[in-house]
């Protein structure tokens, strides 16, 4: 038993459990003195505290031993394996400790508002830990696999809720750390000589979702659910075949992003499994793998798994009304009767739609047992779907994947839900859609090899988004369409309500990484597609601003023109916006003068625009340069001397305003921003 796979890995998972207590009791000096005096512990007291805790609650001695000794020298297996994994992972933490980014997960926690008054704290936290420890030791002996699942959930809950705002340790990343150490230890136990690989799986849901129309709005929910369970199933089946526990090796799971830690030799197996899923869904899946060396993540492979083409039936005359592919098997065709028309769905689209239908058939709560309809292959989760609307609006459908043994969607004992999908029926009134994305942040973290921050952030971003949306929706009518790990798509009825969501996003610690897109109205499929496209495009740029409206308002061209002007003037977007808003009346008259062909009026208005656009900066600049005596450093005797050099730029700006299209774009952008509020302009 002592050397068994589960004992070692559960020990690895729990090795830092003492930190939950020591970090929480950091300011309770008496307690710490007692611990130190009573036990003679000075260094690595979390190891001692952790072992005390576990032994007090009757944990098996061999697990207590692993936890207690994981920082001591001269130890033997299995402690050595845990120690090796701990040091390996610590090398990532040490590597990033020099960076400011080290505290990122903590800052996220603080931004979410995890403080003493709102979250698990004091007796709540104490009771939570106590309750967990009281029950888990029995399960460890009788069912170690189940125990591993519960430990995973406990860690996520406890460490995320810990008082992260006032203490100096990486409490939130403690979850990521435990998970990585457990995964590495587990691999070390099963495959001692294996290279370890971090695999990021991103199903291209947006490519499939582009077929969504107002007639098949449930398609999106079905797509997410099928994808989530499909990838989860593929990964966990492969891990089970290798006798590795999914709860150790799947570091994060969302329908749009999975992170798995496995041996290098297993990547091919995983890709094979995912290929079947890609074919089932006719949806590409991106897989990126990174070799984990000490403190370094090196990109190993970037694979796009394409679905295999299905054999076309020679007699097939029918075409799917969703994906527009031929329907080759009429027996598997699904016919949907809708108010406007009857839809015929091909086998693949039927499966996606069926997923939703299965889940949504029952009013109230429906828990689906493992294995039903071949959807749930991962034992840790059951699925709960409710038709209750959190915003008390019956138009909305909420799908929630709840945790292990959840009896209801509100079940407090359930683990944290991994994904929430909200759907509405796209009523035909004017509305705005907005997208928030943190993809750029995640890309940045992984490209910089910040393993810890990456996994912690993936695990916590969903909460960040929920927090932002929750705060914003208190006094406004904001409806989420999707809230995933790194992005959310929301519907907002009034442009004024956008302020709330945007300011909440920006004022959070992650504000500078926030990508916000706004889309005014549009058919559901188009709106969704455009938002996705915008989020994707903007994730790859440095500046953050995207506004899109297909009707009567903005286009990407408008935004790019606005950006061009800001660059020409060399001023921030917000400054430009403020200057332009004062000039709106003049700009309106100027655009009208193009039609009138009144040369004098036109040139007069243009001269006002140009002179006022430059006004503040030139004055500030002049004063700054003169007051601080900086002119000699610029090899100029007077400010005017420098200005001559700028003539070329000024001519460009002048030409810019001669283009009627440019002026129209500027007016569009400024009026749109004015309706929304200037806060949208991020730098």
């Amino acid at each position, binding site marked *: 038993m002592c050397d068994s796979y589960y004992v070692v890995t559960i020990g690895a998972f729990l090795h830092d459990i003492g930190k939950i207590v020591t970090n929480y009791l950091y300011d309770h000096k008496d307690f710490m003195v007692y611990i130190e005096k009573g036990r003679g512990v000075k260094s690595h007291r979390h190891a001692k505290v952790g072992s005390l805790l576990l032994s007090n609650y009757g944990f098996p001695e061999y697990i207590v031993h692993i936890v207690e000794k994981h920082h001591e020298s001269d130890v033997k297996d299995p402690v050595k394996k845990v120690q090796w994994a701990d040091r390996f992972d610590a090398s990532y933490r040490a590597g990033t400790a020099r960076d400011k980014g080290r505290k990122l997960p903590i800052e996220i926690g603080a931004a979410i508002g995890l403080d003493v008054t709102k979250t698990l704290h004091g007796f709540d936290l104490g009771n939570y830990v106590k309750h967990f420890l009281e029950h888990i030791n029995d399960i460890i002996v009788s069912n170690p696999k189940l125990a591993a699942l519960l430990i995973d959930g406990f860690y996520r809950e406890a460490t995320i809720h810990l008082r992260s705002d006032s203490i100096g340790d990486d409490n939130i990343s403690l979850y990521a750390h435990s998970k990585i150490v457990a995964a590495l230890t587990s691999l070390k136990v099963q495959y001692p000589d294996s290279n370890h690989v971090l695999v990021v799986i991103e199903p291209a849901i947006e490519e499939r979702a582009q077929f969504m129309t107002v007639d098949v709005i449930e398609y999106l929910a079905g797509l997410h659910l099928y994808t989530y369970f499909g990838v989860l199933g593929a990964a966990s089946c492969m891990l089970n075949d290798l006798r590795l526990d999914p709860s150790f090796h799947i570091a994060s799971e969302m329908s749009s992003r999975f992170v798995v830690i496995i041996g290098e030799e297993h990547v091919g197996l995983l890709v094979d499994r995912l290929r079947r899923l890609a074919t089932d869904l006719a949806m590409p899946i991106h897989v990126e793998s990174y070799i984990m060396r000490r403190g370094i993540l090196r990109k190993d492979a970037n694979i796009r798994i394409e679905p295999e083409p299905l054999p076309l039936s020679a007699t097939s005359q029918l075409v799917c009304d969703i994906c527009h592919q031929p329907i080759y098997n009429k027996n598997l065709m699904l016919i949907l009767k809708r108010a406007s028309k009857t839809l015929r769905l091909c086998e693949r689209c039927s499966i996606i739609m069926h997923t939703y239908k299965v889940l949504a058939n029952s009013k109230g709560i429906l828990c689906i047992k493992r294995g039903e309809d071949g959807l749930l292959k991962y034992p840790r989760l059951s699925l709960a779907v409710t038709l209750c609307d959190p915003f008390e609006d019956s138009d909305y459908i909420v799908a929630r994947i709840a945790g292990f043994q959840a009896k209801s969607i509100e079940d407090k004992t359930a683990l944290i839900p991994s994904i929430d999908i909200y759907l509405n029926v796209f009523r035909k009134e004017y509305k705005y859609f907005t997208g928030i994305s943190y993809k750029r942040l995640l890309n940045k973290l992984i490209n910089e090899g910040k393993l810890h921050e990456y996994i912690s952030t993936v695990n916590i971003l969903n909460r960040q988004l929920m927090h932002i949306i929750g705060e914003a929706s208190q006094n406004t009518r904001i409806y989420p369409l999707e809230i995933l790990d790194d992005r959310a798509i929301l519907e907002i009825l009034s442009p004024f309500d956008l302020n709330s969501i945007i300011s909440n996003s920006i004022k959070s610690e992650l504000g500078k990484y926030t990508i916000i897109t706004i889309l005014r109205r549009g058919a559901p499929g188009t709106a969704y597609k455009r938002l996705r496209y915008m989020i994707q495009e903007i994730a790859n740029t440095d500046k953050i601003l995207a506004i899109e409206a297909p009707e009567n308002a903005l286009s990407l061209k408008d935004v790019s023109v606005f950006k061009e002007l800001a660059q020409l003037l060399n001023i921030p977007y917000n400054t430009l916006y403020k200057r332009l808003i004062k000039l709106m009346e003049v700009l309106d008259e100027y655009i009208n003068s193009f039609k009138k062909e009144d040369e004098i009026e036109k*040139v*007069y208005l243009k*001269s006002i625009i140009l002179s006022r656009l430059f006004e503040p900066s030139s004055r500030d600049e002049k004063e700054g340069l003169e007051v601080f005596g900086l002119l000699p450093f610029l090899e100029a005797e007077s*400010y005017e001397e420098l*200005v001559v050099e700028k*003539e070329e730029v000024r001519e460009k700006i002048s030409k810019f305003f001669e283009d009627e299209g440019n002026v129209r774009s500027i007016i569009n952008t400024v009026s749109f921003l004015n309706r929304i509020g200037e806060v949208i302009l991020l730098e």
Partner: protein
Amino acid sequence: MNREQSVRFIQRFCEKLKQLNLNEAAKIVEDVAKELLNVEAVTSSSLERLAELLKQEISDYVDLVEVRSEVIKLNVPFISICVAEALSKIGPGGEELLKLRKLLEALINFYKYYSGAEGAEGVTS
């Protein structure tokens, strides 16, 4: 443009003003403003003063003579003389005066814009 070309270009503008060919003058006013940057004795403040004079109410020939004399006295190279002549042709009141005012304001705004001086206070009319 060399100095000679520059002077000729400004004079062309002045001719158009004198002939009250204001629409044609408007087409080159921006470039003229740029050229005026190189003319000594033309300053932002002198041009502003000129514009202020033109804003005065000119309801009869007495007002007109007074404004003309002030404009000439201001002695902005090239501009004062041609503006004075244009005023004579326009006479008191009339739409042309409004156009002339706007043109002069545009000239000043462009001058300031290219010189980097403080922007215009002008409002749309």
